[in-house]
């Protein structure tokens, strides 16, 4: 796109366009793990996560990517999870995080 010519990115790249229709793959994940809808973004899962000390993995953010339709971001981050399940022990809303991550990491482009 035009922006890169001058060595910087178009600011729009970071902007989330919520008018884009939710991809079916995402509907599928939400359908198979409805507890994702309960998340309140408290961040407890991320605070617990060992992988988060070394990578960008933040589960609540994965869930937000999902709700905003940002498929590429999900795939990249979900791969860092070790499926240890610590996050799930602390989640105050009882989100089935490990199953959700398994579903997310199997999303195909």
């Amino acid at each position: 796109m035009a922006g890169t010519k001058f060595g910087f990115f178009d600011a729009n790249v970071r902007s989330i366009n919520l008018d884009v229709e939710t991809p079916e793959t995402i509907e599928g994940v939400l359908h198979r793990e409805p507890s994702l809808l309960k998340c309140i973004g408290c961040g407890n899962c991320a605070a617990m996560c060992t992988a988060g000390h070394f990578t960008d993995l933040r589960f609540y953010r994965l869930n937000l990517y999902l709700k905003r339709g940002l498929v590429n971001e999900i795939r990249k981050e979900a791969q860092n999870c070790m499926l240890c399940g610590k996050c799930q022990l602390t989640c105050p809303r009882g989100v089935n995080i490990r199953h959700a991550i398994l579903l997310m990491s199997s999303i195909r482009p």
Partner: protein
Amino acid sequence: MSQKNNNIKQVAIIGAGPAGLQAATVLSQNQVQVLLIDKQAKTGGHLEKWSHLFPDSRPSNEILKVLQQGIQKENIQFFKNKRVSKISKSNGQWELGTDDGLVINSDAVVIATGFNTFDAHQKEEYGYGIYPAVVTSENLESIFKGETTWPFNSSGKDLRFGIVHCVGSRDAKCGNLYCSKVCCVTAVKQAIELKKKFPGATVYCFYMDMRMFGTGYEELYQEAQTKYNIQFIRGRLSEASPSQDNRLQVKAEDTLLGRPAKLTLDMLVLMVGMIPAVSLEMKNDAVYLNQPAYGSSFITPDDVFLKMNHHQQAGLFITGACKGPASIPEVLQDAKATSIEVLNYFNNKIK
């Protein structure tokens, strides 16, 4: 009121909203002569404007009917279309003055003047009054009641609605630092109601904090997420503008992701906060009920723990949302507590 029986005490209640109606009911049941005054033609205050109530979606009519039946008594007199503007006291008797010169005497006075909704025109960036698709939470209630029409083509498909929390509250720019307390749960109530009316619609709530303080409110929030799939985005809307297809284009920061978001909407609902209905001013031994100005505060009780229903002079009581944002169950309980205090005052139990 000159030929009054000395054993029977008279109370003047200013405002016939839920708080005033409840106090009138309890006091009249206890042999007090009630003079109930409202600047409007009807009783019910804001309750009369709402369609269904949180937390249990009950039709507001049900509650209104009970409260209105409570005042169908011989010892209650209702003065409509009378705005009280002055309260004074001489020789133990209270005297109320209205804008049109009526004078009402009593042995005690209860102020139950409630609140006004914040004027959304002041938040110019949201375009209220400019774009018809921008409405307030108060407007939406009247649409739900069928008194006004939808500001979009209601047979359209894939409708998208946005709800903005904290409009006129928690905002130094508007002069209101406080939280209006009931608008988060009102947003959830209205979002659910919109989904019931338009099951195919997408509803976004733009919030700063979700303040679900009451019993059952947090559960309602969770139900909004899971059963109705309402989307909650933490971040305040920066602006609304017309889109190319004559809808609304809005921008907000999705603060949990740290990224800007934009979307097109068919209707934007502003959760207007509560501001005081009157601003009290003490002048020459009288209390004036002025129109509130920018940053006016609610009426302060003498002691927030121990004298929640008293205001500065013996025999002058305050009740309901005139003291600050409150829900209907809260103001009804408060009005009952106030009534006890009035009775105690008449029985010389408090000075």
